[in-house]
């Protein structure tokens, strides 16, 4: 038995996704590019899947490319947009708390002569709209900002980017990393005013190894890989149909965002309420953040023993983001939290199937861990 509170790292695949993947591996296993019956069936499954994911995002199927996941989507969007517009200007506007797959792509562009402005967050991970307006100028070719931060759950002012770009008369494309937001908040790209948006399947109870990049009709980016006509030549290579079919099934199984949001908000409030009864506990996540993610610290009780203790009791949580395996969190450092809070930061992330009983178990575990672990 275990209680899983690491849904921002990955989620358990839903039965619909597993079933669809099984079918794509056993019945409909063709290559969508083949011009025969089995290939045609795979092609039909591919387009059907595209429609399902597009529907969940709120865009046209023709605006969606399948990728291998969030990292590839972010890389393709950031590098592809910058190269596409490199003659129009050199400035890129982003934030200090992006995921590594955006941040390290930006570092690559900096090395190639782009100027990257990274907006500084406040202590709860908010980015000011005013700073965004000030940063975007006539030479800006890309604005890239995540919708929800993966470590503390703050919601960033993505919708303001469009207005900033328009008022500065910048040629910029706007990219949004919506990996943590997709399936939890409405992400309709036209409404947010973005040209590019990254989503990933395994954060919405789909399989790992697949994601999608939204590319607004009419927007163009440079490819990053070469060798085939698939996905409008932007993501060549035979489509991983089992993963794509699983992604589509998981997208179809998504509940209406607002229903789940209300339910998870209640869970979050219950959790934070009781957590505050534990001596010294501090919630690092903002109150107006995405309720699926709660980052907290108990100063003196370091993250790693806390994780290990909970893990030994069948409770899965994470310190910072799972991608960095226990390294000091870059995001929390940027938020300028006191060192004692950073050292003891723990992230719990809920899913739509998290129960109150599980949260009680988690709270008991945290209290027991605090009693068992000697601070230093």
């Amino acid at each position, binding site marked *: 038995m275990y209680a899983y509170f690491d849904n921002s790292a990955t989620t358990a695949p839903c039965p619909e996704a597993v079933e669809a993947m099984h079918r794509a591996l056993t019945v409909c296993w063709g290559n969508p590019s083949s011009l025969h019956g089995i290939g045609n069936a795979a092609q039909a499954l591919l387009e059907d899947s595209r429609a399902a994911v597009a529907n969940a995002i709120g865009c046209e199927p023709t605006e969606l490319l399948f990728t291998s996941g969030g990292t590839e989507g972010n890389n393709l969007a950031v590098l592809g947009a910058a190269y596409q517009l490199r003659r129009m200007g050199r400035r890129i506007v982003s934030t200090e708390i992006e995921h590594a797959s955006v941040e390290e792509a930006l570092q690559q562009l900096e090395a190639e002569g782009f100027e990257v402005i990274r907006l500084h967050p406040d202590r709860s991970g908010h980015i000011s709209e005013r700073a965004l307006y000030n940063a975007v100028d006539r030479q800006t070719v890309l604005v890239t900002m995540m919708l929800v931060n993966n470590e503390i759950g703050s919601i960033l002012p993505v919708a303001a980017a469009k207005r900033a770009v328009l008022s500065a008369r910048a040629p910029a494309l706007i990219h949004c990393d919506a990996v943590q937001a997709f399936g939890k908040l409405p992400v309709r790209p036209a409404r947010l005013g973005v040209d590019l948006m990254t989503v990933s399947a395994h954060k919405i109870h789909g399989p790992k190894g697949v994601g999608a990049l939204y590319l607004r009709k009419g927007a163009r980016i440079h490819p990053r890989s070469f060798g085939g006509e698939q996905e409008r030549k932007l993501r060549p290579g035979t489509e991983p149909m089992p993963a794509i079919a699983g992604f589509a099934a998981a997208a179809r199984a998504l509940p209406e965002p607002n229903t789940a949001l209300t339910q998870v908000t209640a869970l979050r409030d219950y959790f934070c309420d009781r957590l505050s009864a534990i001596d010294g506990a501090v919630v690092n996540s903002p109150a107006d953040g995405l309720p699926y993610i709660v980052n907290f610290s108990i100063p003196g009780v370091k993250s790693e023993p806390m994780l290990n203790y909970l893990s030994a009791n069948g409770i899965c949580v994470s310190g910072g983001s799972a991608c960095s395996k226990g390294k000091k969190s870059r995001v929390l450092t940027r938020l300028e939290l006191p060192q004692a809070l950073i050292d003891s930061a723990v992230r719990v992330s809920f899913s739509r199937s998290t129960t109150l009983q599980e949260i009680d178990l988690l709270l008991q575990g945290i209290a027991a861990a605090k009693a068992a672990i000697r601070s*230093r």
Partner: protein
Amino acid sequence: MKEVLLIKNGELALKGMNRRTFEEMLIKNMRRRLESLGGFTFTTAQSTIMAEPLRADCDLEEAAERLKKVFGIAGFSRAAAVEKKMSVILRAAEEYLAPELLAARTFKVEAKRSDKQFPLRSPEICAEVGGYLLRKYPHLTVDVHNPDLTVTVEVRDAYAFIHGKQIKGAGGMPTASAGRAALLISGGIDSPVAGYMLAKRGLELVAVHFASPPYTSERAEQKVCSLLKQVAKYSGRIALYIVPFTEIQEQIKDHCPEEIFTVIMRRMMMRIAQTLAVRERCGALITGESVGQVASQTLPALACTDAVCSIPVFRPLIGMDKDEVVAISRRIETFEISILPYEDCCTVFTPRHPRTRPTLDYVARCEQALEIDALAQRALENVRFMQIRAY
């Protein structure tokens, strides 16, 4: 054509009456290391060991990779083993060494004839093979001083062997020929290197790791296993003892002054490691300490640690800089594993201001707050054992 491995043992050739014992140990080590590739027969003659695969489809590429890491070998070659007839030898040299001969511009031939019944003498073999190869590979010229390729023909008891370049071996002494020692391993960069260095001098390794859940994780233990698996490619299999250390660390934390925490912890580790070492018939302890690297590795601190040991403590890295240690760890491919960021027992409860010049007197006084024997006893009762194999 039959292909074999010809192994030249290094320092062993210098040993006297007990040379045979050393050779047998080396053969035993090689046999174990190559076992999973399908088995070999080993025969010895004049400081050369021939390893002949039992199966025709044996992966000699992999066998050569493994032999490169076996201590006690100065160098070895992959060789064609053929019938002792000049016509066969010529053809074999032409075919077996074709890739090397095509790539070379200059070459020479060396011959050794230990079978004195063979009709041609060494210089005659050289001349004949050389002449033949020149006719078959007209782009080649002979250069006896600085050739691109040396073709060696060895006429021995059962076969004539033909081989090109010799591959450098790992050197050192056969593992276990110098006895056994217990390595204290935390998961950092230093201890695997220390183990490797003494395995090279012929010590068989037993490893002792201290685990402090929940302060240290399962991943930290897996990391130690991965490190030892890599070291075992050189040292042969390693017996690993995992000692539960949480209670001891918490007791030290609760009852002793913070500034002296690490030294007292090191002393507890040494006491426990020594008990295990004696039980495992080890003659020494091995640590990765280096003078002055951290507070517990100053001269006074090392003296306090040593005071609880009655068997020798080997510290092969004692005079080395970190970069020198890192260079070795990269070479033996433990570095990338060592830098995984999991907390290990040595970093739990690190004091903010450790004392760099502890006196034995002071340390012993601080330790009186602990039930040393009972604590060590409980830890030893709950030790877990694992056998680590490289392949």
